[in-house]
């Protein structure tokens, strides 16, 4: 068994209204100095040893992320 993390982020050129809303709220809450926030998704998968990197890439690109608007990374934690 291994733990695999897939992080999915909106591409830099895609407007991220959720991140912008968070960035806009920070000064109102008294936190200054944060100039930009991007919001994405973090998936944690428990996989058995039969799942290879190629399959993980297919899961990430074909399902967990939409490559039209998002970038993704896959990391095996153990």
């Amino acid at each position, binding site marked *: 068994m291994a733990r695999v993390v897939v992080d999915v982020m*909106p591409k830099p050129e*895609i407007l991220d209204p959720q991140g912008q809303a968070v960035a806009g709220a920070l000064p109102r809450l008294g936190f200054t100095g944060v100039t930009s926030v991007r919001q994405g998704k973090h998936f944690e998968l428990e996989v058995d040893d039969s799942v290879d990197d190629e399959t993980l890439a297919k899961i990430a690109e074909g399902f967990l992320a939409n490559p*039209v608007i998002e970038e993704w990374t896959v990391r095996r934690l153990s």
Partner: protein
Amino acid sequence: MKIGVITFPGTLDDVDAARAARYADAEAVNLWHADEDLHGVDAVIVPGGFSYGDYLRCGAIARFAPVMSSVIDAAKGGMPVLGICNGFQILCEAGLLPGALVRNKKLHFVCQDQWLRVENNTTAWTTRYEAGAEVLVPLKSGEGGYVAEQSTLDELEGEGRVVFRYVGENPNGSRDDIAGICSANGRVVGLMPHPEHAIDALTGPSDDGLGVFLSVVDSLVSA
């Protein structure tokens, strides 16, 4: 003349879409998400709602439903397919239409009657309209912002594949005010606003949306 209307878990607008098909004198055929058989339909509507709760991304899970593999094959063979709202998102996720739909620019869910301009009246779903006609139909979506790479946008504009454009203030931040697009052959159309909710002045802001369904019946008769 049979128009199939797909129901996924979480679909909301299948009943109105079927009603719109019947208003256009077609037979509405209910298609179930888990069923690969299209039951001999001549066209398919992928209606609005929140398929599978939209839990991963709008339309991302529905795109893998058994019925969608048949719809994708049929669309590639030239069958007219219309995706409305969540259906548009599903068709983009399925790769039948380019681009993607993202969260509205102002984050709020938009629910309003919306003027649209018909930019292309040669698709299977828009021949009943005059080119440049302005129509009033409901818009109700939280993730209706149309985005695509600049090269894709240029291609859509260059080939006349922007079918509907928002008139007046852009309600969701869609690139180039795009409300609906079509496939290269004009048979697959997707749009965020809801023509199926505007087929009778008794229950909608107008009957402007009926032209979409009359158009596809015309296309099927002449085919």
